[in-house]
């Protein structure tokens, strides 16, 4: 994760990313590379399409009676994700692209990021990042200590599959931090752990729910250290 992966390092991983079987850090490394490499991005898109088409082979099977009305009842309770107006939409996309650059910055060790004009120009060059692996958007949330001190960033990537990347810089204590994802219904989902050394950690995880369903992420470390990142 310290070196920026090159084509040779990424190619063997593309198939596993395409089938969804790659681990979080591998996926992050691949997406980081394909953000700037047309050849590998095209290769990944082709493999992902083939993997998706394979699912057409599953035998069809009629669901139990009442299935259709049960589904429609649930749909009526949930509104579809509205298309946002154009201006908002392009702004959102721009923000997401900036976040993609943030991931790149984190993975290459440049953890501290500031919203400078240079960064925004760099971001513009990464516009295609979101189309990688069907990604819909990438969100960056500040991780705050109980006293409101910023100690890192959580990146949430909505795609097929989705993933989450925790980057800590200057965490109060070293050791294992347990991560919990809390959804909008208030349900807590234990989601693994990361090892903090010298206050730093970068760790990727698969994300098993829609980014829009997540309310906050909490990290609990040694000595009762409690860190949180909120989505809204």
């Amino acid at each position, binding site marked *: 994760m310290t070196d920026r992966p090159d084509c040779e390092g990424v190619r*063997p991983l*593309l*198939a*596993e990313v*395409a*089938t*969804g*079987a*790659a*681990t979080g850090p591998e996926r992050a490394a691949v997406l980081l590379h394909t953000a700037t490499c047309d050849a590998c991005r095209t290769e990944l*898109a*082709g*493999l*992902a*399409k*083939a*993997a*998706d*088409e*394979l*699912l*057409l*082979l*599953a*035998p*069809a*099977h*009629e*669901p*139990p009676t009442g*299935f*259709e009305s*049960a*589904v*429609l009842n*649930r*749909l*009526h309770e*949930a*509104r*579809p*994700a*509205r*298309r946002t107006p154009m201006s908002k939409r392009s702004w959102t996309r721009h923000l997401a692209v900036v976040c993609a650059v943030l991931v790149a910055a984190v993975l290459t060790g440049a953890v501290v990021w500031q919203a400078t004009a240079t960064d925004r120009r760099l971001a513009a060059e990464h516009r295609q990042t979101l*189309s990688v692996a*069907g990604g*819909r958007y990438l969100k960056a949330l500040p991780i705050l200590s109980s006293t409101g001190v910023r100690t890192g960033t959580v990146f949430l990537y909505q795609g*097929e*599959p989705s993933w989450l990347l925790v980057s800590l810089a200057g965490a109060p204590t070293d050791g294992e931090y347990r991560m919990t994802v809390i959804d909008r219904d208030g349900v807590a989902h234990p989601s693994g752990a990361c090892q903090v050394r010298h206050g730093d950690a970068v760790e990727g995880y698969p994300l*098993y*729910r*829609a980014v*829009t369903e997540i309310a906050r992420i909490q990290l609990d470390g040694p000595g009762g250290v409690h860190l949180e990142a909120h989505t809204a």
Partner: protein
Amino acid sequence: MAVTDEGLVAGMAAGDSQAAAAFVRRYQARVFGLALTIVGVPATAEEVAQEAFLRAWRYAGGYDPRRGAVASWLLTITRNAAIDVVRVSHERPYEPDTLLGLLDPQAERPLEGWPDADRVRTALHGLPHEQAVAVVLATFYGLTAREIAEREDIPLGTAKTRIRLGLIRLRDQLEVTDD
């Protein structure tokens, strides 16, 4: 004249519940069938299938026809919802042999009226058997190379190679038959 798949998805993105109803009717057997194939338990499969349609409804606005047909988009959503359940329960209740039976050229053709599936089946049969098995386990069940290595009792590098070569070959075969 029937509304196209793309038309129904566009309708759903606009919040049209009639389009959603038609969409569910058109695809429920395939969605439930895939969910059942992966989770193996009808009650769980029904829950997964409902969740898949809910996600499709929410994300209809994000469907991109350049990435693939509506069917594979929806089935990918279904697969992910099913794997979520399988992983959270920390169980592997499925019977892989049922799915691997799909690799058998003698298997009956359960998808009459879905010519796209025939095309994929032919491409899959073009792979060496062990590559086809690795690709199917990774794609349907989200098994990692390590899990496949354990299951098949082969070295990790071999499992990775099988997934990679198998998927590349599958992609090449499908591209040849693509119009």
